[in-house]
């Protein structure tokens, strides 16, 4: 059974003049145990797809199964299998890191003692033990991201969704997150991650899809995508994932550089 299956997934925001077709028929098939990368330029529809797959947003058309459960028909069942860290870390600034994780664990059905233990374990995991009892309001951006990641892990989800998990992190923190994603994955969790960093996708992902303007335009393993580009263009040099991305989205290198700057 696949970890994630989506067929003809569509999302249209608003209507009339404000109508935006953010996702226009996305098909996905992510195997259990994979780290699947979801790449695309700004506004391509990555976050919208993640929100639909994680029951946070209604689906305009199409169908999605996560962990074998239809997210529209049984959102409750799906939520038990899903862990999610959205693009904007969603945290309660008035609580402490420990309180947030304990609360999260309680909401997933753990008793107070188990929840407390789980929170302590995760705080250590993301190296926030020192700041655990401080209010989140005083955390740095990187600390908030790590706490958000930890809160997505409380119930050891089958499928973990990470929407741009390393955006805004310093290089060292980024590598720590990569290591952690690999470890989580080795323990059996399927990871679906969106990213702006092609190197990240190259390093981490078994397979990836490139989405542009609401449609998937490339899909495969990093090496198969590079090979396909080399064969098609007949170039001698080995293409990088950057080249694949630029080729797929029809963008020039300069344009991409400008956009990446705009993100952060």
């Amino acid at each position, binding site marked *: 059974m696949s970890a994630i299956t989506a067929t003809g997934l569509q999302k249209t*925001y608003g209507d009339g003049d404000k109508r935006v077709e953010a996702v226009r028929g996305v098909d996905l098939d992510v195997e259990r145990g994979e780290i699947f990368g979801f790449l695309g330029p700004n506004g391509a529809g990555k976050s919208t797809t993640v929100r639909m797959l*994680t*029951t*946070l*947003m*209604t689906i305009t058309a199409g169908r999605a199964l996560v962990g074998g459960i239809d997210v529209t028909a049984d959102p*409750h*069942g799906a*939520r*038990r299998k*899903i862990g*999610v860290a*959205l693009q*904007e*870390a*969603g*945290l*309660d*600034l*008035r*609580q402490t890191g420990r*309180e947030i994780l304990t*609360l*999260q*664990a*309680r*909401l*997933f*059905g*753990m*008793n107070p003692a*188990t929840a407390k*233990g*789980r929170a302590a*374990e995760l705080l*250590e*995991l*993301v*190296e926030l033990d020192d700041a655990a009892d401080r209010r989140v309001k005083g955390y740095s951006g990187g600390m908030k991201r790590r706490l*958000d990641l930890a*809160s997505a*892990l*409380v*119930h*050891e989800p089958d499928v973990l969704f990470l929407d741009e998990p390393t955006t805004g992190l310093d290089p060292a923190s980024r590598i*720590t997150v990569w*290591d*952690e994603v690999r*470890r*989580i994955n080795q*323990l059996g969790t399927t990871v679906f991650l969106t990213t702006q960093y092609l190197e990240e996708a190259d390093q981490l992902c078994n397979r990836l899809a490139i989405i542009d303007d609401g449609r998937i335009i490339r899909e495969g393993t990093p090496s198969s995508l590079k090979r396909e580009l080399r064969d098609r263009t007949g170039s001698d040099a080995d293409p990088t994932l950057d080249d694949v991305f630029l080729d797929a989205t029809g963008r020039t290198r300069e344009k991409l550089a400008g956009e990446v700057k705009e993100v952060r």
Partner: protein
Amino acid sequence: MTAIARSDDTVSRRDAPANGLVKDSMILGGRAVREALRTPDSLLPTMFIPLFFLVVNVGQAARIFPSSDTPFLEGQSYGAFQLPASLLLSASFGAAALYLVEEIEGGYFDKLRAAPISRMALVLGRLYAEFLKTAVVATVMVGLALAFGIRIASGVAGFVVLLVLVSAWAMVFSGFMQLIALKSRSAAATQGASMVFFPLLFLTPNFVPRDQLTRPMEIAATINPVTYVMEACRSLILHGFDGAALGKGFAVVAVAMALMLTLSVRMVNGYD
């Protein structure tokens, strides 16, 4: 970082049974209480503004309504007649809705929505805290009133009923405000909406009994559901246990609560 340890209680984590509505609401309610305790300055106006009105209104009108020859006071001072209006005012600030807007803007609401908890618990959590907050504030206000010679005619049991009624009203009022917060997702719109609900508190027999109002006001007050909550509170303070008045008051709260919860759950389910 160390790897995730899958210890012996892995099973109790992954396959922990769902909590159910009441437990989830209490867990979220506990958090909302913590939040209120950490922002005590938001609690003060809910106490002092109604007390201010109580003092000012009584100060202005007490001489017109001396307890000796004002039958509707049933032997008490005019302050006793005014107390329910102040209690309901303190229950009608809807602070929960503003916290909810913050939570939506900050993204934490999405985190809670992604948890496998009943959608109604998402709504009820804060309202549970609102109930407790209002009960505490109302207790303090009634305590002050007692110190100034006001008596609760229905006794200690009546006082408890009064607290339940006022606090349940706070849940209803805050619930409707939360609904607006969910719809608008904006603090300004939510605050503006409270200006729409607020007049309902004043289209009531809050200065004199309903039968002594001018005709247009009497009609307005009779249509206004808040009137019956106020009259129920008043009966407990001035008169004792009045089954008819209490019945109407609690019926209004129950119907409004059911309506508010139905609309809220529908809103959360279709929330994008």
